[in-house]
């Protein structure tokens, strides 16, 4: 009888615990679903042909689109990738293929710390280094975006190179192939899927960055006119438009948010699917 009571109480406490956990899940999921739902439902009405083909309207003007922001964002990301991808891959190779060296663990540590530095600070760095000399410019913005990319690409390259079995390297060495050739033509080839994953993830990260854009080139709503001049940027536009009192700009902010959300979701999910496929293959 007594035992039965204790047991019942235990079961009750266990159930209460489960309910609390499920509540935690719901408390998190409701806002998340709301973010996705509101972005889609408020962004969708803003999307039409004009949205993608017309330039940004002046404050208070009706209609218009974000064409020059799309151009500017593509240019910024392309320039950032031009620096970020090669530097990231090469440093990832060093950290993985020469991991017996003591210095690599120090560099890895710095790399991880750098990865955690808030993007606004990286933007300020680029501002002092470049914008202060040549003015607000796409060059300064892309440099800060590249610095955000590099740690991500480095970490992912390093991890995917490590996953290539040592036997493959040994087989190549036994044939007398030098290390650099082995790394570039054999090891890198086996790891390319992981590296592409890292690149996509890093682009997904910088496409939504607005804080470094704000301090390196400011708000600009015209077309590209040179590397030492600013360009327009989608993520920063959301901030400027949302904080403005103009209905039309707020509308464009939601539209831009939807486009960015879709891009970011794709850039996050495609790499994951790729990794899943790879896991299946290795199993």
């Amino acid at each position, binding site marked *: 009888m007594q035992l039965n009571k204790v047991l019942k109480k235990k079961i009750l406490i266990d159930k209460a*615990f489960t309910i609390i*956990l499920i509540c935690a899940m719901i*408390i998190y999921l409701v*806002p998340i679903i709301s973010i996705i739902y509101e972005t889609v439902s408020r962004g969708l009405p803003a999307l039409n042909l004009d949205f993608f083909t017309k330039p940004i309207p002046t404050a208070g003007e009706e209609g218009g689109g974000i064409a020059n922001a799309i151009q500017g964002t593509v240019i910024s990301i392309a320039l950032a990738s031009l620096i970020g991808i090669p530097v990231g891959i090469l440093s990832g190779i060093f950290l993985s293929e020469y991991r017996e060296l003591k210095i690599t663990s120090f560099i890895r540590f*710095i790399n991880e710390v750098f990865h955690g530095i808030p993007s606004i600070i990286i933007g300020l760095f680029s501002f002092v280094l470049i914008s202060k000399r040549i003015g607000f410019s796409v060059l300064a913005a892309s440099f800060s975006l590249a610095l955000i990319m590099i*740690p991500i690409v480095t970490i992912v390259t390093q991890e995917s190179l490590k996953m290539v079995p040592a036997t493959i390297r040994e087989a190549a060495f036994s044939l007398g192939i030098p290390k650099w050739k082995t790394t570039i033509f054999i090891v890198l080839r086996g790891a390319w899927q992981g590296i592409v994953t890292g690149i996509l993830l890093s682009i997904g990260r910088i496409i939504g960055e607005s804080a470094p854009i704000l301090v390196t080139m*400011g708000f600009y709503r015209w077309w590209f006119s040179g590397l030492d001049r600013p360009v327009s940027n989608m993520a920063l536009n959301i*901030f400027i438009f*949302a*904080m403005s009192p103009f209905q039309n700009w707020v509308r464009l902010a939601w539209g831009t948010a939807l486009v960015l959300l879709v891009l970011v979701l794709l850039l996050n999910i495609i790499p994951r699917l790729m990794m899943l496929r790879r896991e299946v293959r290795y199993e």
Partner: protein
Amino acid sequence: MFGDKIFKYTTAFFAFFIVISFLMLIYELYKGSYLAISKFGLSFIKNTVWDPVNGVFGALPLIIGTIVVSLLSLLFSLPISIGVALVLVLYLPRKISRGLAVLIETMAGVPSVIYGLWGLYVLAPFLRENVYSVLQSMFGFIPLFSGPNYGIGFLTGSMVLALMITPIITAVTKDLLLAVPTSIKEAAVSLGPKKKELALIMIKYIKPGLFAASLLGLGRAIGETMAISMVIGNKFKLFPSSLFDTWYTLSAIIANEFLEATYDLYISSLVYIGLLLLAVTLAVIIIARIIIWRFSKVRGEI
């Protein structure tokens, strides 16, 4: 071999690029804030006036705002993150859990301006109409609950930040839970057949890792800029007058005033704030990293 040497030094050069950038970042921020440092010195940290018209700048209210807002967001986020991670690992079937985990990890990648936009146009009006106003009508006689209700403010800001750091803390917690050795789990199960015991013992086991995860989340919350600047109200004051009042943080003031800063000392003061922000986040991240490294080492030995 010659080719190998070139290869080694080329890749080493690029690996050092990040180290050099890191050192340059500290130096350039110092250089950029030199004007403010030479004018205000360290008393910049304890001054409570921010007056761009007369060129007087102090950061104490911003520092307090940053600490309060980021700690509040951690307070909101930590229990939820632990709960979500436990549900994912212990309670859901593997397939559903995997799908949800992908969704949550993806939310970590959603740009902060989108969180800010949602916070400003969806969450703030909702809280103003349905939560804050109700709280005011019930507890309005307590000073903490009185005062103007804009919807935006430091409490709303902390909630948005909590949403943003939850995916990070959840992901780390989930990995920690999955790495709990089977022997520990078996021992826990032998003590009682209930999941609650198992969950609590696992949580106890991963405590140091959990502390590091919280620090990572905290570091992110401290440095988060655009979202907080959109929902906190951006008003410079030492303390808010109520829970619903507006406030300011270190990062928010940079985002909100950088484009309006018209003279060198003003810009320099904002860069000085960036330098303070860097010092705080570096301390938090480095402690977190060291704990994680140690924890994974200890686990590796078992």
